[in-house]
């Protein structure tokens, strides 16, 4: 009997450690009842960084709306190749090109590594210099491209950066998007998870994250400052795309609002394509040299 208990305990430990390790790339995972907060959050990060797909192509726009209603718009084209390659530690590579007038031609190439403690490598094509510059990684708490998101909200926050507590399961009350006035995810079953940063002091003390059971995406993120006041929220609309018979969760809309100054950012992906066979050659410095603008 003792041996059976030990064996079961060992199995649980093994199962747990398998989950605590990286999820296997190019698989579809969905959070299920009975999972721990850590397991759910691993899936949430997996979905956020599209690790289920070999590549993704996105065309979209970002709207920056200030308190007075004044709107700035940036159009982008984004490509990502997921590698999950241990030999050179590459998790995925991103190429983002700006297509709107004031910043046309500006492009960034970013390599993200598997090692969670390692910063990204970023190269920038600067049209006014017509040259590539390797740039220092922005600080995680800096704003991302002038939006209401921080760099880590969009790019760099990793599973290892926070501790997680499962608050419970609830139906999401719904979010009415300020961009298109539609209500999303009304009564969608979700896990509610409290995320606390390991870094202290930090610009937020905790996040309350609603993770959609259907897609595994973190659809609503409330952020609290060190004094416990809610200062920002981020909504994400995930939709399921059928690709080669699999259900791929895609981020269609991301909307964030800074409650301190009522500034809002909405990112809308108007074209989303998965598995289009992007070559890794496109994610090298030479791709930036080929820029024309």
């Amino acid at each position, binding site marked *: 009997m003792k041996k059976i208990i030990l064996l079961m305990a060992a199995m649980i430990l093994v199962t747990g450690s398998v989950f605590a390790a990286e999820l296997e790339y190019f698989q579809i995972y969905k959070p299920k009842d009975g999972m721990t907060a850590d397991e759910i959050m691993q899936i949430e990060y997996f979905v956020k960084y599209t690790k289920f797909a070999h590549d993704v192509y996105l065309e979209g726009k970002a709207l*920056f709306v*200030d308190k007075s209603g*004044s*709107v*700035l*718009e940036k159009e982008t084209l984004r490509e990502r190749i997921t590698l999950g390659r241990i030999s050179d530690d590459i998790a995925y590579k991103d190429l983002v090109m700006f297509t*709107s*007038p*004031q910043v*046309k031609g500006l492009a960034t190439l970013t390599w993200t*590594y598997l*090692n969670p*403690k*390692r*910063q*990204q*490598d*970023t190269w920038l094509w600067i*049209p*006014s*210099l*017509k*040259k*590539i*510059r*390797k*740039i*220092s*990684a*922005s*600080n995680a*708490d*800096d*704003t991302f*491209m*002038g*939006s*209401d998101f921080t760099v880590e909200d969009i790019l760099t926050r990793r599973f290892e950066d926070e501790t997680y507590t499962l608050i419970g399961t609830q139906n999401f009350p719904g979010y009415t998007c300020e961009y298109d006035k539609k209500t999303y995810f009304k009564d969608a079953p979700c896990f509610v998870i409290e995320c606390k940063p390991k870094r202290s002091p930090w610009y937020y003390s905790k996040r309350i994250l609603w993770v959609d059971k259907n897609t595994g995406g973190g659809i609503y993120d409330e952020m609290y400052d060190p004094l416990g006041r809610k200062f920002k929220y981020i909504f994400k609309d995930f939709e399921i795309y059928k690709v080669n018979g699999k259900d791929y969760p895609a981020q269609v809309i991301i909307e964030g609002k800074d409650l301190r100054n009522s*500034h809002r*950012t909405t990112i809308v992906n108007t074209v989303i394509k998965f598995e289009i066979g992007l070559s*890794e*050659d496109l994610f*090298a*410095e*030479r791709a930036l*040299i*080929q820029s*024309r*603008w």
Partner: protein
Amino acid sequence: MKKHILILIFLLFLCVSFAYAEEKFDFSGYVKSEVSLRTNGDANTTLDKFKNFVDLAGQYKIKGDELVFFAHTRYWYDAAYGLNDKLDPVQHYMGHIQRTDWLRDCYLDYTNGPWFLRLGKQQVSWGQADGVSILDRVNPSDLTEYWLPDIADIRIPLWMANINYSPKLNSNLQVLIIPDFEQSTAAPPGSPFAFRSYNLFTAFKNRWEAMGNVLNANIYYPAKKFENSKIGMQWQDRIGDWDYTLNYLYGYDYLARTYLDSTAGGGTIQNYGRRFKIDQMVGGSLNHSFTEESPLKGVTLRSDLAVYINEPTYYGNATTGSSAGVNRWNNIFWLVGMDRYFFTKWLTSFQYAQYIMEHKKTGYKNSTTGIPYVTLNTYTNGPQDKLENIFSLKISSHFMNDRLLPELLWSFTDDNQGRISPKLSYQVNDNIWLTLGYHYFYGSRLDSNGEFRDENQLYTTMKYAF
């Protein structure tokens, strides 16, 4: 005739419309107005620049991304040269765009697997340095406004074949064949940023001719032959997390040097020739971001090194600013730069460079006075140090969701001369940017920045992009 032109324009419009509808055609452009006021010197505040630009660029995808045609045109005129009487003598050259300068880019891109060809008029950028051309010498430079404009506007595009082959991931071999030739340009005497050496030569010419003598100055361009093409090569690769390039450039230097060819009439007639000389550049660049946990995490390191072989260098009398001849020396220019964010959003960029002249003891001296000659600064005809230490510090940030961008650039050398340029840019809406800035020059008139100590400028820019 008019009817035919109208039909042609209509057909062109129709073609562009169809291409645009098929997403084969894309374009962008801007109109921009730059106004500068000189705030010091021998006069009250004067209008130095009222330059207006129209810029239009377009691409046509002939065969998807495999074959693309790109053209970029720009027209400008500077109204200050018509409004400010003091600038009248140089109105023709500085007030209007010259010759074919309106065509900034015109090339065909061909991409196929590891091959990438860019054939046509273009500019090529080498190296990692900011604001200092160490490896960035593929194209000639337009220094009519010193080094103040964006570097992409300083480079003078040339017709060339730019051939690239990528034998393996993250590597690239670039070969440049440049049969086209343009000389680097400088502002003529009488313009705000005319180099002192240029002013001195013109003053000497005027004095000489006022005495009833004759001074002939002819410029001799390299013959337009294919064998006179400039050749460039760059190998780019990574070793671990370090990016590096190896560079080589061979051909005619874009800067003409002045030689006294002959004298006649008992010395009253002097014949000068301005010639371009062949030299070589061998060098490389390196960059690396420290991404791992360490005290340097977050730092990006950049470095350029170039050896100029047979670089023509003036020598002469620095006190009078007169050149006695040209030596061909092997000089070294290297730079190391570091970038890092501080206090979340303040990007600090520091560069340190050294220009090391071979500086052989020339043994030359003035035959009359016996005073030994020294090496001269090409731009000022002042003394050129054997070792020049050059520094720059740039701090930039962003506020109001990137609408407001402050920047401060301080570049200086160990001769206590330099330039301080603060700048504030504001994005009004999706199309309009406003910029307000100041250029403050200080130091000796014999040094590169100090020579413009009376040319401090307050400037504004308004740009409408579409």
